[in-house]
């Protein structure tokens, strides 16, 4: 096997891994704060992609310029979903919450199907398109930009959680629900903000990949399953676990694509998943055993 192809695959995987990182890290935020396994995460990404598509088509602008719009829209949607729906069952057993987010995902995904048909759509970009070259290796520019943007957002998210008072409130509540409640932090509002932020981040990931990813209502499902694998691999609740887990999974998927036949590229991902669950369920960097 040509080493060039391998190196190309690894770096490609790394680039996509950056995007996965943003998806995983935001999923992890929601889990870490509210102990909710958010099945609707993929759907949020899909909605972000569609928002970008429609804004880009109607205003005739570059998809990247719609970033703030898709993020804001999904922040609001996420906030409302948490506030209006998920908050009602915050005390319910875990699998009920999983089912609720699944129901929301089913509803939204098929609503999108109904409104916009399953037809694949694509955003056409002329600027910031093309490819970059480094020696014998070639990388599509939008993928590099997506990687960079996802990385920046991940760092912003981290700083937000660590430095801002809102972020600290979110972390306080995730570490000690009762205690934070006692000192007056409005739990329900914080949960909704956290959920909204999670949705906004994954919408951003969606926006960034529109130049090279087909847009269709079912695109979310694959991303959310991959995100779960990553979060479990990295360790539920661990920010950097999700980050590095994403890079690993991105590379594994890319190598799978090159070494096995195309559609089998997810086999390494699921295999990693099962092995992680069995051998090291708290993940690489996980804290407590859930």
């Amino acid at each position, binding site marked *: 096997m040509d080493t060039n192809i391998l190196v190309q695959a690894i770096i490609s995987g790394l680039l996509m891994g950056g995007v996965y990182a943003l998806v995983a890290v935001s999923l992890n935020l929601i889990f870490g704060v509210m102990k909710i396994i958010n099945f609707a995460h993929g759907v949020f990404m899909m909605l972000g992609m569609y928002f970008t598509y429609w804004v880009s088509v109607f205003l005739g602008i570059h998809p990247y310029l719609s970033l703030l719009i898709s993020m804001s829209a999904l922040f609001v949607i996420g906030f409302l979903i948490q506030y209006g729906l998920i908050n009602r069952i915050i005390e319910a057993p875990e699998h009920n919450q999983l089912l609720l987010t699944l*129901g929301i*995902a089913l509803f939204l995904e098929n609503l999108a199907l109904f409104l916009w048909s399953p037809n694949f759509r694509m955003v056409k970009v002329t600027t910031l398109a093309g490819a970059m070259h480094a020696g014998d290796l070639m990388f599509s520019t939008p993928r590099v930009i997506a990687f960079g943007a996802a990385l920046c957002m991940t760092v912003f998210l981290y700083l937000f959680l660590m430095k801002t008072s809102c972020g600290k409130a979110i972390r306080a509540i995730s570490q000690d629900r009762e205690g934070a409640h006692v000192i007056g932090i409005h739990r329900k509002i914080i949960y909704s903000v956290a959920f909204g932020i999670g949705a906004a981040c994954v919408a951003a990931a969606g926006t960034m990949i529109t130049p090279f990813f087909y847009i269709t209502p079912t695109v979310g499902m694959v991303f959310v399953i991959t995100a779960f694998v990553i979060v479990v691999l990295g360790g539920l609740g661990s920010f950097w676990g999700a980050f590095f887990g994403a890079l690993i999974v991105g590379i594994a998927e890319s190598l799978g694509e090159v070494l096995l036949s195309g559609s089998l590229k997810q086999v390494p991902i699921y295999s990693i998943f099962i092995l992680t*669950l069995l051998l090291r*369920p708290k993940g690489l960097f996980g804290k407590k055993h859930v």
Partner: protein
Amino acid sequence: MLFLWFSVILIAILLPFVLPPYFVHVLIMILFYGYLGTSWNILGGYAGQFSFGHAAFFGIGAYTSALAFVNWQISPWIGMVFGGLLGMLLGLFIGSLCFHYGLRGPYFALATLAFSELLRLISLNLELTGKAIGILIPLKGNDPLSFQHESKIFYYFVILLMLIGALWVTRRIDGGKIGDYLSALREDEDSAEAIGVNTFAYKLLAILISGFLTALGGTFYAQYFLYIDPAVTFGVGNSIEIFLRPIVGGMGTVYGPIIGAFVLGPLGELTRGMLGGYQGVHLMIYGAILVGVIIFLPKGIYGYFISLRKRDKDEKLCHP
């Protein structure tokens, strides 16, 4: 009470003969998903081990009988039994692995999902299973011994009998030691162990029974539609359709799944007609119902009625 049962049975027997074929089909689908939901319920409802990957058992059953028939002319009835046994073996494998390592709750759910996805990817890429094209079962016309008939009434009675069988199994479990043990380990595994329940063995028992029955359902599907492919058998959508009925109807109850099937079935058909077009739009309604049930009726429709009746009974005791 006996009269109620008698009339239900009478109606059930007469119905397919008086209804037009489309409605018989709807009824068959209701009974079919009620059957699958009942099978799932043994593991998910009674044992409390929520499976997100029951499509794995379904697909194993479907492909086993289909392949046996297409390649070696083995009657699908026999293929069905083999499929069921393979489903059991799969259950043994998945269960031993997952339960030995103590996977519970969402971890177990996601693990089962991973297994069913792996099977889907394998069948998508294997020559034997026809890759993406799947398997087309040759038309034999009126050949009950080959599990085929031109009239839907045949299939109606087959699935009705299967459903009755699954309900019978569930009732036996519900009323006795196995049911108590499964419910105990579902409620609190440590306490169950402390009172002598071999939780590993009983969880395994639940997945074996559930896997076996679900695989049989896969064969029925194959013989009814005469076509299977990786997506429709092993796909996540299938797993979701399977556990949706018990959740809406009431997990851990005997009749919950079939009640859920009677609620979701007609709704699905109605929306299919109204909203038309694309595959799966009825899932939008299902999603909304799921959200509604989880928030307002977490015990499911039947579960809610049971708790209402219990409350009435208690109130009658207090206010004679």
